[in-house]
């Protein structure tokens, strides 16, 4: 952690205290507290966590599952890696509390293949917590049991999308599908399942012990709490920062030594490119996308080159299931190559922009729905630089 001000996630933590408290409170009170905190998912989509838990808790089923989404693949993010490396017990305790809330006995960490080196330490953390009675059978000597297993991914960005992730764990190609049913109804092995991001789960122990009211003192009204930002690119101090939601781009740049930037990619490749004129905008669910990936571009950077890198990423990672995403990203990349050669007319660029709208409306999952944002925002911010080379 770069910033000295310890806010929530890197504050004091005693393993097991929150789980003990959650068991005393009981499932309903836990769900109520998490709902009251207004915590929203930190994996990108921002779904209210308490509501997700409530929907899953309500399902009647002999088995339910908790999945920790550790597929962290968005270009520019590495905060989940840091949490898993430095705070594995916090992640595991968050999962166990989710288990209490929804009535699950089994949890999984879906760990991206690129992070396989974390597997051993995570397994050690699991057995250490089992030895101390915080995981495994009859936790705290009571009736509640919860165990955790690790499942490895194998190099596919789209598997971070929750339906794709479940499909991958179920032994199929990791392809997204249409909803409903939602994972809360039919997830892992078709049983009710909660999927939460690593960081989301890490706030849970604090909300349980310190209360929703305390949590809401951080952030804005619609975006409560803090957020981990993974900062990279042209900055003096790259790294992970815990900052208040609602922070402006300017404030963030001052914190990380990124003053004088040409533009900032907020929310990763699938987020938005933000130019200097908009640096006073806040990053939160009601503002710029709070995915947490912050890539800073200095004035020497060629923004068309940046855009090309992003489009190559999407072409490669599209699962190819639906035409707007498979063909659309390819066409956008082709457009970038034409722009590079100075062969793209203003009229054709307009056509590509219209194609972006089609992709947003008709792609099946978040990948195809958000990939045009990189294209649209960079083209809008740097039209002259890009068109007249």
């Amino acid at each position: 952690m770069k910033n000295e001000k310890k806010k929530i996630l890197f504050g004091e933590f005693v393993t097991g205290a929150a789980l003990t408290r959650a068991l005393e409170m009981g499932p309903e009170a836990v769900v109520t507290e998490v709902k009251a905190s207004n915590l929203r998912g930190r994996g990108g989509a921002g779904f209210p966590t308490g509501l997700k838990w409530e929907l899953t808790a309500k399902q009647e089923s002999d088995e339910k599952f908790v999945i920790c989404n550790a597929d962290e693949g968005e270009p520019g993010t590495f905060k989940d890696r840091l949490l898993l490396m430095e705070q594995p017990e916090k992640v595991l305790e968050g999962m166990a509390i989710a288990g209490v809330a929804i009535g699950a006995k089994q949890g999984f960490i879906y760990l991206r293949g690129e992070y396989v080196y974390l597997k051993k330490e995570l397994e050690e953390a699991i057995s250490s917590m089992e030895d101390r009675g915080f995981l495994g059978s009859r936790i705290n000597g009571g009736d509640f049991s919860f165990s955790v297993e690790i499942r490895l991914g194998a190099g596919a960005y789209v598997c971070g999308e929750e339906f794709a992730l479940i499909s991958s764990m179920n032994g199929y190609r990791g392809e997204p599908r249409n909803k409903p049913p939602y994972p809360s109804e039919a997830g892992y092995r078709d049983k009710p399942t909660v999927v939460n991001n690593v960081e989301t789960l890490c706030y849970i122990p604090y909300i349980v012990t310190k209360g929703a009211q305390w949590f809401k003192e951080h952030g804005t009204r619609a975006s409560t709490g803090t957020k981990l930002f993974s900062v990279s690119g042209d900055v003096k101090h790259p790294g992970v920062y815990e900052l208040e939601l609602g922070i402006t781009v300017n404030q963030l740049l001052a914190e990380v030594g990124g003053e004088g930037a040409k533009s900032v990619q907020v929310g990763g490749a699938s987020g938005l490119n933000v130019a200097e004129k908009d640096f006073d905008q806040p990053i939160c669910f009601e503002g710029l996308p709070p995915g947490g990936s912050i890539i800073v571009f200095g004035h020497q950077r060629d923004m068309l080159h940046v855009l090309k890198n992003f489009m190559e990423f999407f072409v490669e990672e599209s699962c190819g299931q639906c035409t707007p995403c498979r063909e659309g990203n390819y066409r956008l990349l082709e457009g970038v190559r034409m722009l590079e050669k100075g062969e793209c007319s203003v009229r054709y660029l307009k056509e590509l922009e219209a194609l972006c709208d089609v992709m947003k409306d008709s792609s099946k999952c978040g990948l195809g729905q958000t990939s045009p944002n990189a294209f649209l925002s960079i083209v809008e911010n740097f039209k002259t630089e890009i068109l007249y080379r």
Partner: protein
Amino acid sequence: MTAGIRAATDELQDVLRKFGKNRTDLLPILVEINRYFGHIDSNSIIEVSRYTGVPIGEIHGVITFYSFLGQKKRGRFVIRLCRTISCDMAGKDQIVRVLEKELGICFGETTDDGMFSLEYTNCIGMCNNPPAMLINDKAYGGLTPERVVEILDSFKLSEYQDMFGYGGVE
């Protein structure tokens, strides 16, 4: 059947025995075979199909979906260089040239002695310390030409990194 194939089949059975036979065991089985043998050959696919009851065609479909799983033999050490933007801006192209020159192969190829394969990958979550690459299970950040040469030499001199062990971050 030659002794070699029989031995490989025995090893495969040892790997399979560690897993259940449900559809949900399929990905963990394939990941483990890929780690153990470096790839998943057609004999393995037949055995996995027998073991789990999943049709061969579907197993193919799953393998081709994931970039880390492959049916083609890769080198003993697979080098995956990140080509995403933060690494790109930090001088990835220079690292590309060093790797290709030192190993005498291009990206997408394997050295004749079967030691190294060169591949690209997308962001590996090391963007705070770019450029970065994975070699099998280990991540290396802050790459410079000198450091790349040092790392390659350490692999050539001693095979200190067991292919089946778990790496770390350097």
